[in-house]
């Protein structure tokens, strides 16, 4: 369980987060929604322990984030953000191996190597393991980054312990196939004692994949819903300044959102 307790963040006079308290649901896909400038990224950064809040605390389980050493924290949670470009011709396998850095000292163990192969397998990039990262397409590069974070918080083998995956708009600039693939793999982690906490720029996709929703407005959490259907339409309309409607997909009866100005 990841808890953000009475967190505020200020830069000078500007209040970016104002006394935010959220409890992310364990082993669920938690989505933080909100318009640009609502404080989503700041909240995520603070929840990962990479940014110190002005006041308030963040805990994983009953341990404060600040009490973890940097490598211990890196073994507990991973962060996947927008696609990274490299200026260097590093091999795909070497990029994924970075996920194991917090786990070993000088040289990777055989288990580290095995986890790297299995992570590549999970994202379907085994065939490209020896290729140079910059020669891959954008979608493939992000698959490699996904494999890296899987390797970092590897939880597929017993014994398991609670892990956290933070997604900071990782599907931005990806084709729809790669978006769905990434979110599917992330959802797959939920069965392995991993909590996913995500900011997604595509709100339709977010509502389709999320379990729990935190709607942010002006540095506060305006609404919390445990079902996409539980989000009030009027609130979405006000916060995002759009017209929204919910329709039912005749094929499977799932609720879908439509937006217009």
């Amino acid at each position, binding site marked *: 369980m990841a808890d953000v307790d009475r967190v505020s963040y200020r830069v000078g006079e500007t209040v970016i987060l104002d006394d935010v308290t959220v409890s992310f649901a364990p082993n669920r896909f938690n989505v933080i929604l909100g318009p640009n400038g609502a404080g989503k990224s700041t909240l995520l950064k603070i929840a990962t322990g990479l940014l110190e809040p002005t006041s308030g605390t963040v805990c994983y389980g009953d341990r404060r984030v600040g009490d973890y050493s940097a490598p211990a924290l890196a073994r507990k949670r991973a962060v996947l*953000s927008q696609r990274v470009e490299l200026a260097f011709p590093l*091999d795909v396998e070497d990029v994924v191996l970075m996920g194991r*850095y917090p786990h070993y000292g000088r040289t990777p163990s055989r288990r580290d190597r095995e986890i790297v192969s299995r992570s590549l397998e999970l994202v379907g990039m085994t065939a490209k393991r020896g290729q140079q990262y910059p020669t891959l397409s954008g979608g493939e590069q992000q698959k490699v980054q996904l494999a890296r974070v899987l390797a970092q918080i590897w939880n597929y083998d017993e014994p398991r312990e609670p892990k956290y995956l933070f997604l900071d708009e990782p599907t931005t600039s990806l084709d729809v196939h790669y978006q769905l693939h990434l979110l599917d793999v992330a959802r797959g982690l939920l069965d392995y004692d991993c909590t996913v906490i995500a900011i997604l720029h595509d709100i339709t996709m977010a509502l389709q994949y999320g379990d729990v929703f935190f709607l942010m407005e002006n540095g506060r959490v305006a609404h919390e819903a445990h079902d996409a259907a539980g989000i009030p339409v009027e609130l979405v309309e006000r916060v995002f300044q759009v017209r929204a409607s919910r329709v039912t997909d005749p094929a499977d009866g799932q609720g879908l959102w439509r937006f217009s100005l």
Partner: protein
Amino acid sequence: MLRRLSYGQSYILLGIILAAALVASAGIGAFTFSPERMFRYLGEGLGWIPSVAADDLGRNVFLKLRLPRVLVAGLTGAVLGVSGTLMQGLFRNPIVEPGLVGTSAGAAFGAAIIFVFGESTALSFATPLGSLAVPVAAFVVSFAATMIVYRLSTSFGKVNVFTLLLAGIAINAVCAAGTGFLSYVARDPQARNITFWNLGTFTTADWRGVELIGLFFLICFVWSLRYGKSLNALMLGESEAASLGVNPERLILQLIIVNTIMVAVATAMVGVIAFVGLVIPHVMRMLKSADYNFLLPASALFGAITMEVIDIAARVIIPPAELPIGIITAVIGAPVFLWILLRQTRSGSVGFYG
């Protein structure tokens, strides 16, 4: 060629080539020595075999001039190779080298201050530092210059290549102006020193240089080996590196310190040698891997090999005179620099990295 070898095998191969380059560099020049003669001198110098009095001149030239020169060249090459690797890792870009980001120019400026004012009363504080005054001053200015360029070229944890180039130009210009001013106000022999030394030279190499550069290189090299993983992680950018457990702030500071110590000492001894730090890691990356755990030792070895070859060239191109090292490295290095830059621009990838 190296692709099929393991890291360890690659080091052994580079080591063998380095040994051959050392022997060649020690043997070729105004005085030519056969390997057999060189080993005899070496034995005599170490007192293992009795000296042959008739061969005093050859032995003195070899032991007092040639050998230290060869060692200083190799060590300087190793310093520049490792430094280029560290700086490219820090700035996440293969166009970076100590000459570009102000490290060398800063060291030159710092050293020139002591050259010109070191004896005067105004800077008498330098006296207790003795022979270390030049490297220490070189370190201080060099550190400040590199730090300024890094801060200017980074925004939100990402390095912008254009700002990096422009900041580098500006800081280099300031340091060059300072050095230029000092050589202008200096009395004649000092000015001549500065000019020579701005182009890089091994002619003044002696055993004290070997000891100083060797000692600091060894310390900094062993120290820098700890950063292989962190440098790899930093390729992804500061915040990604942080999420992997690296403290980017501390890493950046430590990288600049370890790098500047090596470069300052080497620059204080042999002057400014540009472009070697750029080319060495680049070649190693093309031949084998971009993994910094490999690049750090490999660039040390290949840097030493390259510098021996360049030093041989400097001695044999216009005998009996010698070409300044910096001229040769610029002639070879500048086109390589432009080629890398052009390739980045063409692939549309100049801009933000990591």
